[in-house]
């Protein structure tokens, strides 16, 4: 299964990752071989088998609407790279103007 350099670049962009052309080429080839490997699945005859997205024999798993205690603010912010007051602080995300 063919993966073009553009495909690889697009996926890198979606993942917010930057690669050198050499790295990208390695990844492109790896993706290609991965997809080729999995494309064997489509050789199976699935006539009469309904499509499914899960393997668990379960539906309608729900909980009752009851509020429970949350983490403390200190615990929530424990892994924050930076904070201001009780908020996470991150590099500025400017509103689109």
């Amino acid at each position: 299964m063919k993966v073009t350099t553009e495909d690889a670049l697009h996926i890198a962009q979606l993942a917010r990752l930057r690669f050198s052309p050499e790295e990208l080429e390695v990844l492109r080839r790896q993706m290609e071989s991965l997809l080729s490997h999995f494309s064997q699945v489509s050789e199976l005859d699935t006539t009469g088998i309904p499509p499914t997205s899960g393997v668990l024999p379960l539906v309608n798993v729900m909980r009752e609407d009851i509020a429970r205690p949350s983490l403390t603010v200190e615990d929530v912010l424990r892994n924050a790279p930076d904070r201001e007051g009780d908020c996470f602080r991150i590099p500025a995300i400017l509103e689109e103007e």
Partner: protein
Amino acid sequence: MRSPTIGLEVHVQLNTASKMFCGCSVEFGAGPNSRVCPVCLALPGALPVLNRRAVESAFAVALALHCQIQPFSQFHRKNYFYPDLPKGYQISQYDVPFSRNGYLMVETEQSHRRIGIIRVHMEEDTAKMMHGRSITEHAVTSLVDFNRSGVPLLEIVSAPDITSAEEASAYLTELRAILRTLGISSGNMEEGALRCDVNISLDAGTRAEIKNINSFRFVRKALEYEIERQNALLDRGEPVVQETRHFKESSGITVSGRTKEEAEDYRYFPEPDLVPLEITPEWIDTVRQRLPELPEERRRRLHEMGLFPAEAATIANAPELARFFDRTLSVFPHGKEIANWLLSEVSKTLNARNCTIDEIPLRPEGLAELLQLVHRGTISSKIGKTVIAEMLATGKSAGEVVHEKALGQILDPETIRGWVQETLAQNPKEQEAYRLGKDALFGFFVGQAMKRSGGKANPELLNRIVKEELEKQ
């Protein structure tokens, strides 16, 4: 003038006790990051569990909007990077939303039209970001509060059936009345419980999308501006660009956002951490049976009771007012009279105190007691206004106020006859003139006798007795 084609996409926050997929409380106004747990913060290994009430609230809305609820539904991951989305994806619904193909009847002064609903689906809200606010040395920074992350949302997508800014506004008003009547959302736009994206084109041309408008008034203003802007462009022979625009509240105009360089690629796929929903007719029926009377039916019922359409709408569209009305009606079966008092004296107090009807010291039974006194003629409606003012101020009952202030009308004919006879005896000249044909003096006698009663004689009775006494002479 070109004809506008408008579609609305409304996001509704559900007022459940807990979030969509975790037990954190959904509470407006809590301190930043105080309603957050491993699930809604996306810590590794945390798993979502669906909130039953959120699902059933969603069913209720879909049923009220005449949607078809699908027998099978599931959640998908919508993948994108943004700091308000800790997992890197939003749990939403994609090609199998739980409901589609509904409609909403929308009434404006010019028309009464059916606006299609393409779909209603469930998803989770994102965190709240605050921009460019810093109290430290960092010049520009963004802050994130995850309390809103995972709050249950409904997305309600209308068909592009709306044809004017006024109709868009009427659509939102009706939708909010339904949400409030169902009791599943505050519908409060200022608190962000209702958010609206608008898309609009002229003569089915290229459309522009205006994102995240947060008040009814602004939706209308943004649309009016956008219709004008697109018309002007087309008049000059320039194209309308397909883009996302933002509404500037300060100036009332829309400005171009970044045009999309590439098509969005959300790579939706079924959420493997949640099992599908199998929605049986029995389950739908249980929810259907719990549905309250919806605003449209309620307006019709009140109108048939003799209320003007505007009165019926004011009461029917505000669930707490409607509840109060119905409870009063159950003990005092005269709807029109209840509406008269509710929409004048009581509403005045609500406006003055800026509160809801549940926050004033007047209960439906109390209003009914007062109206009963007026209805039976124990007090005049003018005195009734004094009484209700006192009731609203002190929380006393109508009976207590009437008794304390001795405001009751006098209904005893002999007492009234006494006042009439005294009046006639003191005015022999006027009596003579009346006998000679000066009919206008009748009103004079009534007025004099009423004065003697301290304004408390029942007017009809007084009239009758004055007539009787004059004929005796």
